[in-house]
């Protein structure tokens, strides 16, 4: 037993001499420190990647929302209620703006937001109030404006198809610049055009005067001013309808390419090759508003028609060509 104790003592002494060398300790410590810091550094890029991914997601979502929610074209609808529908590049209605109290009411009744504009137009036309207006002989003006001409033409075409069944709806195309002017006057685009026609005849008219007038009333006003000069033209919208072509009004007195009409006398109507019954691209009507599929409109005040998108207003003006 004593021997064993002695052995144990010796054993302890023997192993007690053995120590981890300072160099080994130092080396190990620095290695561990490196590892610990490296791991921390590793965790960081993961965090950064996640942050970058989140940013990307937000950007894509925001970009998509912007694309979707930005109207690229507007459809302005005027009977008495004045409405303007913003159509985005995916042909969906993204905004509905009313320009008078009737329009506000109508907008509240309609649930057409995010609908395809074709369906929206159907919905609108089958809407009780609108139907009532139309059956009572109200005039409805549909004006399409957009920054992209191709798109605008396409929408106009579709809208015309939609409204082909109704005799007293007229469709026009316009451009954005004109529309912005209309908005700055607080009018919808369709009314603004009528207002300009009226203004040409009676410079004392203000936008406020006509804001709450129905299109029919404005038309009648224009007719009353221009009735004398434009007796040569058809005075009723019902005349010369040509729904297939989207022409609503009257007979054309225009050449295809925006001839110069000497309005005021009316005796030059029918000049030129395109004259006749709304055959060409333009049409004119007594109400001073002509509509063409692509062409400009001439009005009874003797405005010429543009070949494509020009519209003439006022007396004795030249129509624009392209």
């Amino acid at each position, binding site marked *: 037993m004593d021997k064993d104790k002695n052995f*144990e003592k010796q*054993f302890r002494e023997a192993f007690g*001499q053995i120590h981890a060398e300072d160099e080994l300790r130092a080396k*190990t410590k620095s290695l561990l420190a490196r*590892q610990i810091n490296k791991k921390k550094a590793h965790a960081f890029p993961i965090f950064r990647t996640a942050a970058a991914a989140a940013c990307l997601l937000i950007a894509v979502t925001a970009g998509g929302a912007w694309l979707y929610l930005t109207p690229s074209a507007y459809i302005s609808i005027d009977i008495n209620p004045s409405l303007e529908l913003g159509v985005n590049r995916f042909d969906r209605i993204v905004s509905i703006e009313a320009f008078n109290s009737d329009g506000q009411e109508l907008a509240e009744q309609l649930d057409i937001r995010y609908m395809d504009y074709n369906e929206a137009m159907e919905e609108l036309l089958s809407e009780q109030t609108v139907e009532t207006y139309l059956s009572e002989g109200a005039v409805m003006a549909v004006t399409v404006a957009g920054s992209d001409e191709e798109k605008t033409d396409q929408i106009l075409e579709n809208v015309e198809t939609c409204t082909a069944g109704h005799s007293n709806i007229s469709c026009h195309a316009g451009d954005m610049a004109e529309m912005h002017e209309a908005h700055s006057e607080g009018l919808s685009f369709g009314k603004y055009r009528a207002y300009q026609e009226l203004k040409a005849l009676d410079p004392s008219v203000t936008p406020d005067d006509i804001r709450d007038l129905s299109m029919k009333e404005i038309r009648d006003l224009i007719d009353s001013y221009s009735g004398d000069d434009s007796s040569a033209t058809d005075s009723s919208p019902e005349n010369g309808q040509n729904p297939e072509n989207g022409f609503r009004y009257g007979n054309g007195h225009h050449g295809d390419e925006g001839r110069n009409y000497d309005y005021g006398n009316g005796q030059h109507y029918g000049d030129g090759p395109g004259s006749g019954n709304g055959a060409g691209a333009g049409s004119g009507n007594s109400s001073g508003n002509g509509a063409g599929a692509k062409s400009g409109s001439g009005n009874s005040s003797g405005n010429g028609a543009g070949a494509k998108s020009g519209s003439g207003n006022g007396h004795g003006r030249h129509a624009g060509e392209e």
Partner: protein
Amino acid sequence: MRSEEEANRAVDLYGDTVRRICMIHLKNRADTEDIFQNVFLKYVLRTAPFDSPEHEKAWIIRVTSNACRDLLKSFFRSRAVSLDTLIEKPQEMPEDHSDILEAVLALPEKYKDPIYLHYYEGYTAEEIGQILGKNTNTVYTLLTRARKMLKTRLEGVTENG
């Protein structure tokens, strides 16, 4: 992942123990350094808490022992001859009590840990069994045999010397 302070504390506290276990198993300095660093790296990477300081120490001992065994068992090692062996450069041994150290080193692998833990660290057979994952009675047997072998060798040395 443990902090740098914890790592330093562990190296200071258990460095000697780990170093000694390495010494009784391994024959060269490079391997010792390898295992030594690996053990503490494992310690740093271990996130689960220890129940007590004893638990921590037992864990360190077991990890060191396993690491040494793995190294000795590895395929590469069993087939290749280390450069150190070729140039006959064993690790430096302390002068004093070299007979005891040599006697322990000469023991077969499985006896080394129980002997060291029993005589130096003062663990009982039961504790050694727990640490090394062996039956208590197995540890008794190992200790008895090892003691016998050591005695024979040491007595032989003294007789011859």
